[in-house]
Every structure is written in structure tokens, then in C-alpha cells.
């Protein structure tokens, strides 16, 4: 019996339990005893008692069954598997078992003893299997299928029994003073808690998965060489060659990341801030209603589109412009820090302006009135009262923006290039951590080489960098919030 069918049956049981329990609760409402919970809470509680334990049991059973089957298959493998490794033999057997499912009952009853005879039958059903499937796997696979069916049936029966038991228990619990509402709401609370935990658990999972690969990397390349190396030259991972030949210096990448982010912020912060001041303080409501959404629309443009703009329009334009200025040779390369920073800055303007606008608007009207009432002009009020009051919030917004700039990839690939160099000249190419992560992980590579593993070390460095910035930003923003109360 398939899991889908079992789930459907459980659901039907749950719905029936809901209807019966609600009916019963409603019939209790005779006016003598004031019911504690309304009828539909009793319904929901019976539904949950019927469905939840059964579903959880089914999930645990399915996982347990597949683990059990796996270990069973391993134990059935002969000493000489005839293929490269035992795990490979097990997985071949599993695909064979899956293939056998396609055959009809008669064919399964009279399975040929050799794979050579079996293969045409399978091919006729459209099942293609690896040619090194061994003969001894056929009976094991057939046995495994029977075992799976048996386990599945047992699980299904147990699950449905559990669902029925839960539903009956739920229905029998319906009493006028039973606290069905509290039960349902407590369960809701757990559900919400679970939902919010998932994001945190995923983050921890991401960190851990990177951490182990990073430790693996540091086993081959010393951390000091990575963190303080000034040359990035990972070479290629040639099969069989001495692995740690390349040089993995973080400094050029880190410098590039921070440099480009700095240029981007130099563009985005003043423009974004001024546009926020205009929007919050000067713009007529009509203008604000039109301009603000338009500006926020910019934030929705995919960064690759900005990258294309940088690559085909702005980069060549700056190069030609510099050539014209210098009279012949251009001093701005087509791919340069300046190009990447400018385009990234434009991308970040809506982020800065939107965040700062919210913060400036949050400054109480009483502050404005107080200042204007003393004869200050609007710009004096903004300069001396509103911006200082909003400053912590704005700093937080800038830090949040900075971590976006640091994490940006596509614009840099297209606009600043992939050359890892150390330079202070903004007109030359440089590259960032994110670009190199992509670089090291794309293409045909041997996974277990430092050339690949370095991507994880880079990733975790980037993660730590943005995490610290976000924490500082949140801390500042929170501190700001307390200020008016």
C-alpha cells in the first residue's frame, strides 16, 4: 500500500473524527453546564489526535524500514561482490529491485537466474540497468521487494490503527468542561515554534557542512597561509599530482571584496540618504506615492541584469571616456573596481533610501514641531535634529547594506573580472571572495582537493564577516529603538 494512500485514509479518519466530535460537543450544549470550549475546538482536537500521531508514526516507520532494508542488503552481499565496492553492489541491487517492480506477477514468479536473461525482459519495460549487475543480486532483489511490501503493509495497518485509536480517544474526550481550546492552542504554539526553529536549524546545518570541509581544507593548507597569504594562485587540481601546490592567500580577495563594497557604499549611501531625506521631509504626498514604489522597484531587478549593464554599457563607456580624456590610452580598464562599485552602488540606492526613509519617518513629529517652533528652517531641523536622532538607525541600515555589498557576486563577475590582484588603483580589475567561490566550485573538478575545498573556507569567512556586520547592525538598530521611550 503506498504512503500516499495511507495518508489519504488518515486524513479521512481525521475529518470524520472532526465532524463527529464537533457534533457531539454541540449536542452537549444544553444550557445546564456552560461548555468550556466551543464545538469546533473539540472537532479540531479530535482531528489532531487522529492525524498527528499517525503521521509521525508513519514517518518514523518508513525511515526505520529503509534503514533496516539497507542493513539487510549489506548483510546479504557475498564476500566477493564482483563490482568495485560493496556500497556500489548494494545500490545496484536496489536499482534492480526497483526495476523488478515494473515486471508483471507472472514474470516475477518465474525470474530467470542470470542477468543476461533478465535484461531483455527489463528493457522491454523500459528499464535500463548497469551492465555489471551480477547474477547473485537477482534473488536478493526479489527478496528485498517482498520484504519492502511486508514492512509497508505492516506499517500501513499499524498507522491506520493508530489513527483510529487517536480519533476514538479524541471523540470520547468530548465533555462540556474539557479544555479542547487550550489543547489545540498549545499544539498551535508548538507548530509555530517548530516553524521558527527550522530556519535556525538550517543555518546551523549550513555552518556545520561548511565547517567540516573547511577543517578538511586546513588539514592540507595551514590556516596562517590562508588568512595572511597575499597571493591567490590555486592552480589546477591535476589527478595524482601533489595536491597543495597552489597558493591560497585570502588577502587579495578580502581586499577586493572590501574595496568594491566601499566604492559601492560611497555611491549608495549619500545618494540613498539624500533621496530618503527628500522623500520623508520634502516630497508632496503625491510625489512620494509615485517615487517611493518606483525606487523600491529598482531593488527587485536581478543583480545579473545590473551586471550586464556594467559589462556592455558602463564599462566600455568609462574605458572610452578615459581614453578620450587621456588622449589615446585609456587608464580605466573595461572591467574595473570603479565600474563594479558604481553599478553595485546604484543597485544599493533603493536599499539605503528605503531603510533610511522608514527610520527618518519614525522620528516623532514632536521633534520636528519643536525645532520649527523655535524658528529653525526645514534644513536646519533635518541637519540638527532629525538626522542626529535617526543616526543610529541609519548606521544600522548602512551596515545591513554593506553586508549585501559584500555578499554580491554577479555584478562583480561581470564588472570587475576574476583576476585576484592586490591594487589600490580603482581603475584596475580586482575580484572578490564570492566570485572565487563560484570559480572554484564550477567545472569538472576533483572534489577532494584543496582547490575545491578552499571554497568552503572562503564561504565560512564570508559568513563570519557578514554575520558580525549584521549583529552589529541589529544591535545598533535596537539601541536606537529605545531612545524615545
Amino acid at each position, binding site marked *: 500500500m503506498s504512503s500516499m494512500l495511507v495518508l489519504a485514509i488518515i486524513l479521512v479518519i481525521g475529518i470524520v473524527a472532526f465532524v463527529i466530535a464537533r457534533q457531539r460537543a454541540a449536542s452537549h450544549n444544553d444550557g445546564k453546564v456552560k461548555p468550556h470550549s466551543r464545538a469546533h475546538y473539540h472537532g479540531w482536537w479530535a482531528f489532531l489526535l487522529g492525524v498527528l500521531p499517525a503521521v509521525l508514526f508513519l514517518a518514523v516507520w518508513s525511515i526505520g524500514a529503509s534503514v533496516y532494508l539497507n542493513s539487510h542488503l549489506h548483510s546479504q552481499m557475498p564476500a566477493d561482490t564482483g563490482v568495485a565496492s560493496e556500497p556500489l553492489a548494494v545500490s545496484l541491487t536496489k536499482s534492480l529491485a526497483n526495476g523488478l517492480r515494473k515486471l508483471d506477477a507472472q514474470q516475477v514468479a518465474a525470474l530467470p537466474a542470470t542477468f543476461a536473461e533478465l535484461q531483455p525482459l527489463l528493457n522491454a519495460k523500459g528499464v535500463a540497468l548497469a551492465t555489471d549487475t551480477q547474477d547473485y543480486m537477482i534473488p536478493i532483489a526479489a527478496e528485498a521487494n517482498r520484504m519492502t511490501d511486508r514492512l509497508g503493509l505492516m506499517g500501513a495497518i499499524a498507522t491506520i490503527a493508530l489513527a483510529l485509536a487517536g480519533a476514538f480517544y479524541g471523540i470520547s474526550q468530548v465533555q462540556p468542561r474539557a479544555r479542547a481550546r487550550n489543547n489545540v492552542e498549545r499544539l498551535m504554539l508548538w507548530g509555530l515554534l517548530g516553524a521558527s526553529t527550522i530556519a535556525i536549524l538550517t543555518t546551523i546545518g549550513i555552518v556545520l557542512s561548511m565547517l567540516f570541509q573547511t577543517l578538511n581544507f586546513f588539514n592540507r593548507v595551514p590556516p596562517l597561509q590562508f588568512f595572511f597569504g597575499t597571493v591567490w594562485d590555486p592552480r589546477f587540481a591535476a589527478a595524482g599530482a601533489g595536491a597543495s601546490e597552489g597558493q591560497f592567500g585570502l588577502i587579495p580577495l578580502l581586499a577586493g571584496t572590501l574595496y568594491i563594497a566601499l566604492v559601492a557604499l560611497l555611491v549608495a549611501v549619500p545618494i540613498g540618504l539624500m533621496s530618503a531625506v527628500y522623500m520623508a521631509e520634502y516630497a508632496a504626498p503625491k510625489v512620494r506615492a509615485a517615487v517611493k514604489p518606483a525606487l523600491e522597484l529598482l531593488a527587485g531587478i536581478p543583480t545579473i541584469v545590473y551586471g550586464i549593464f556594467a559589462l556592455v554599457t558602463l564599462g566600455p563607456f568609462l574605458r572610452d571616456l578615459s581614453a578620450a580624456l587621456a588622449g589615446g590610452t585609456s587608464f580605466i580598464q573595461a572591467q574595473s573596481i570603479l565600474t563594479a562599485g558604481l553599478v553595485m552602488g546604484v543597485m544599493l540606492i533603493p536599499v539605503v533610501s528605503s531603510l533610511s526613509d522608514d527610520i527618518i519617518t519614525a522620528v516623532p513629529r*514632536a521633534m520636528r514641531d519643536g525645532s520649527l517652533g523655535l524658528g529653525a528652517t526645514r534644513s536646519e531641523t533635518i541637519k540638527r535634529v532629525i538626522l*542626529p536622532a535617526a543616526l543610529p538607525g541609519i548606521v544600522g541600515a548602512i551596515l545591513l547594506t554593506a553586508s549585501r555589498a559584500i555578499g554580491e557576486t554577479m555584478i562583480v563577475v561581470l564588472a570587475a573580472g576574476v583576476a585576484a590582484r592586490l591594487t589600490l588603483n580603482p581603475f584596475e580589475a580586482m575580484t572578490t571572495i564570492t566570485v572565487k567561490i563560484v570559480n572554484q566550485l564550477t567545472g569538472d573538478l576533483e572534489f577532494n582537493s584543496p582547490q575545491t575545498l578552499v571554497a568552503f573556507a572562503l564561504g565560512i569567512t564570508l559568513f563570519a564577516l557578514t554575520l558580525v556586520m549584521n549583529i552589529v547592525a541589529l544591535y545598533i538598530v535596537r539601541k536606537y529603538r529605545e531612545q524615545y521611550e
Partner: protein
Amino acid sequence: MNIMTEKTLEQAVSSQMSAQTNEVIKMRGDKVTVHYGEKQALFDVNLDIRQNQVTALIGPSGCGKSTFLRCLNRMNDTIDSAKVGGKITLDSEDIYDPKIDVVELRARVGMVFQKPNPFPKSIYENVAYGPRIHGLAKNKAEMDRIVESSLQKAAIWNEVKDRLGEPGTGLSGGQQQRLCIARAIAVSPEVILMDEPCSALDPIATAKVEELIDELRQNYTIVIVTHSMQQAARVSQRTAMFHLGYLVEEGATDKMFTNPDDKRTQDYITGRFG
């Protein structure tokens, strides 16, 4: 009315005498109307504000008294939908004349708000804010003098003189309001407008601020909006009663509270509506 005691009678007599001797009209509203968008909030208000007197504006909520107050230093300009009609003069000069600079006007007609709104700066900087904008002090010593005398006039100097560097937002509500009054005084205005300055304060702080208002009358002309009839009776010499956007009645405070001409005033001050 039990506020009609011997003492207030005496005050009534003395203030009427002074009214006869010292009748300089500082500000005058002539057929003032205000529209907020489609809605008219004020209808043809004619009201004189006398120099060195406290004029109280009373009336039920939404009667237009705060609206009128905000016309006197053009704070209504900051509300986009507000339109002011009629004529308001300060020393016989039309303050809505295009030649008048609103910034200068607000330096002459200061304002204290309902909720104390010190800036998130130090106590010193709060008071120095206005003089600094208007360039009233040439050097640090002069600024110190302005700050000290303003705080003294606002009767808060003794409480804050040892902690001028601390944030103004850290003071108690009553102290914050007196700080805001000091801040308004610091730019040496001629008129001080107060929009329910005690409504966010406890009775003790209220008493202090009222005492202060009475003292300030020596040097300034004061217009105060209040919800409390007792407060109007205690601090003001003239009272104007507003209702539904109209000026119902205006006159000497003692007369308003003992023998008003208009029935609505009578009903309002005896608590029959409002």
C-alpha cells in the same frame, strides 16, 4: 462656582485696573478662518491678544482653539492641507504677508507643545539650539549666559545646573516641560504660545509650570490653550471660549467665569458639556 472666592475677586479688580492702564494689543486676529482640506475648522475669529497678559483659549475638544493658536506662529504651514484665511497681525504687521519670513516670525512667537518634546541632546544643547540657529551668541561665554538665564527664567536652573551635559530626555515630565519653556525663552520671543502645556504632567509639576507662567507674564505675552477651566482661571487675565470653530465669547477671565454673556460659556464652565 466655588472658585469665586474673595481672592479671585480681588484679583479681578486689580487686573481690570491694570487692563485699563495697560492696553497694548500685541497680536490681533481679524476674521481668521482655517480649512483642513474640505473641512472648515475655524470661522471668522476676531480676537485680540494683549501685551504682558495671559490669554487662555478654552472650549471642548475639536473646537478650534489649538488651530487658532497654531495660526499665531504659522505652525499650520507645516500641515499640507491647512489653508488660513483672514488677517493676523503682530505689532500691526500682517504675519501672513509674503514679505514676512516665517523663520523670523517663529523666533518672535515661540511655542511650547502639549507633550514635552526635548531633543535627544544634552540639556545644555536643548536650550542652546535656538540661539545657535539664530546666531544670538558670539562666543561660548555668551551662550553659557543665555542658557543659564533661560533655565533660571524657566525655574529649572537649580534642578539641572549640575548636570547640563546629561540628555534632556532623562528628566521627569514636569522638568522636561520647563526645559522646553526654557528652550523657547532662549531665543527671546515676544509672545509664547502654549498648547495644553500641563496635560501630560502630574498635579505637582502642573503647579510649578503654572507658577512659572504667572512669572513669565512680566516679560512676555502668553497665549495658552487649556482643557482645565481651573487652570484658565488660575493663570489667565483674559479668556476666549471656542465652540465648533467659532469664537463664542472673549473677555476678562473673572467676568467669563462669574458672569458670562453666552449661555454656551455658562454651560461649558459649569461642566454641562465638554
